């Protein structure tokens, strides 16, 4: 075969193979660059020397550690950040507990309205945020809470949309679990509570943890629903939105960088732990 192939054809094949072998890699690198460039910009800008001219705000004018040394230059920013963390943690705790209990009920117990509950739980995920936000606002106003919009209404709203994500995540984990495992535990002398804590909970825990992390990031990140139900309270995303039309303090990039580092660390820890579990 090789003898019959003309020379140029052989070269073409070689070139084709060279291309094919590197095409996937090349495309992959382009995609990675596409995702990482904005992140790199955030990290870079956190070391930017602030400029007075508003129009040149995203021009790198010189390296400095000032932003990192003094992250709360604008106290309003740190105040909003703390509030977002506070709301995020509370919403996570409440929605994770309620959602986990709901998931157990939906998977383990047969009751009237189970299948419709299973379906309705998707509603907050499927409905557009703007619709959810405005209907929540209408509800709060109708309930006579129009004047008290703020921390608590934001919290209620966040718990509401986090809840369905928690239920769906934990339910998937629970449904994928072999029923026989619990029966086996009981067969091996474990009482119902021992069965739960020794077998069921450890097996469902990764799902619960994932749901909690997801809840926090959803809550921390939310702008639309929060903005409609916040009254005079300002969360971090609302603060960023507010200042973006004026002068953006470079410290926002510091916060952004910290958040990126934190999330990457969490993912890495999870990855390392699961990798360590593999080899005996």
């Amino acid at each position, binding site marked *: 075969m090789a003898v019959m192939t003309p020379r140029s054809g052989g070269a073409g094949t070689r070139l084709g193979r060279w291309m094919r072998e590197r095409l996937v890699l090349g495309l992959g690198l382009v995609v990675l660059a596409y995702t990482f460039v904005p992140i790199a910009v955030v990290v870079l800008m956190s070391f930017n020397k602030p400029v007075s001219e508003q129009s040149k705000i995203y021009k790198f004018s010189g390296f400095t550690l000032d932003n990192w040394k003094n992250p709360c230059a604008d106290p309003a920013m740190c105040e909003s950040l703390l509030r977002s963390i506070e709301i995020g943690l509370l919403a996570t705790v409440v929605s994770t507990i309620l959602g986990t209990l709901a998931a157990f009920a939906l998977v383990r117990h047969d009751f009237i309205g189970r299948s419709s509950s299973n379906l309705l739980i998707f509603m907050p995920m499927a409905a557009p945020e703007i619709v959810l936000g405005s209907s929540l606002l209408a509800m709060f106003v109708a309930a006579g809470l129009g004047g008290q919009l703020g921390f608590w209404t934001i919290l209620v709203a966040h718990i509401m949309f986090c809840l369905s994500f928690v239920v769906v995540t934990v339910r998937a984990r629970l449904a994928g679990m072999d029923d026989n495992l619990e029966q086996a535990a*009981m067969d091996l002398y474990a009482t119902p509570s021992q069965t739960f804590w020794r077998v069921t909970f450890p097996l469902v825990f990764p799902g619960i943890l994932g749901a909690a992390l997801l809840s926090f990031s959803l809550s921390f990140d939310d702008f639309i629903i929060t903005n409609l139900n916040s009254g005079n309270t300002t969360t971090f995303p609302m603060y960023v939105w507010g200042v973006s039309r004026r002068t953006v303090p470079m410290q926002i990039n510091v916060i952004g960088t910290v958040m990126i580092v934190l999330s990457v660390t969490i993912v890495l820890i999870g990855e390392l732990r699961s990798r360590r579990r*593999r080899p005996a």
Partner: protein
Amino acid sequence: MSQVAEPNQQRASEDAAGAGGGSGLRLRALTKEFATFTAVRSLDLEVPSGSFFALLGPSGCGKTTTLRMIAGLESPTSGTIELAGRDITHAKPYQRPVNTVFQSYALFPHLDIAENVAFGLRRRRQKDVDEQVRQMLDLVELSSQSRKKPAQLSGGQQQRVALARALINKPEVLLLDEPLGALDLKLRRAMQIELKRIQTEVGLTFIHVTHDQEEAMTMADTVAVMNGGVIEQMGAPAELYENPRSTFVANFLGQSNLIAGSVVSRSADITTVDMHGIAVSVPANRTHTDSDRGWVGIRPEKVLIGEVGEQLDAPGNTIPGGVVSDVSFVGVSTAYLVRMPWGQELQVFSQNTGRVRIFAVGDAVELSWRPEYAFLLDHAQDASAGAAL
């Protein structure tokens, strides 16, 4: 169903004294009804301690439900379960000295092999758990794998872990729910021998649920054939095979030729049956019907095939007029289908000893069998019951 299985001879000495009344497992009128059907109907069963007992039947016959009721994972609608003289009918699964090897093994994926095996001991706060686990892993030849997670083991190894995890608790009764079902044929044969060896070694009562008749017959001292929620017949494997009492057992355990006939006469030791004009005899203790019609049963390997007019070494029942309609050469034997004058095709397995030539399709032949191998079943039963399962 009044037979009682023979206890295993190599019984652990501590229980040997109690081989009589109180020990062992006793089911009385055990019934389980589900919303739409009855899975188990008034089952009476006695399993002496130390025996290897098999519950054999097709899927849906109630064998797994029976097992789950013994384990306490299902609660009976009525009837009682007694173990070593104690009524455990309504005891919780974790209160019974019974352990199960699940069909799916149900190993705890988050625990390593040693902790899986130690699970039952730890729940009962036993001492020297590590030492017991080490010995048990030695028994199932998995000592080197003790720190691995179940997912890292092969199917056969997981099966042995499941067995070790149940055995280590030294239960009064060990329940095995189709434990070899997920293994390939070769591994299954090896595990059958292994299971039998372990049972003999530890001397515990094993109740093994399976739909594989060969598996049941190879391993068990006593086999109970279940069908439609009741035990059709129970006994030693050879006894069940040689003298089935119902068409279901005749067809489910191996294969049988069932030929319609009417009873001509009955004596103390012989029943004479007219089978499409040919008189054949069946021993009285193999006659399982009181009516005047019945199915004459004969196993294919008990049927001899020969040339027309040839003197066959089987005085008694000779049936002329057969024509070979199908031949499959297996090697050690040849399987024939022979069309009889009344239109029925009979199966014949002939050993390739070289004494009889191998017949071809269309050859005229005569069949015969020794009367002591035939059995007579009730005509009211379906001749094809259990055949396709």
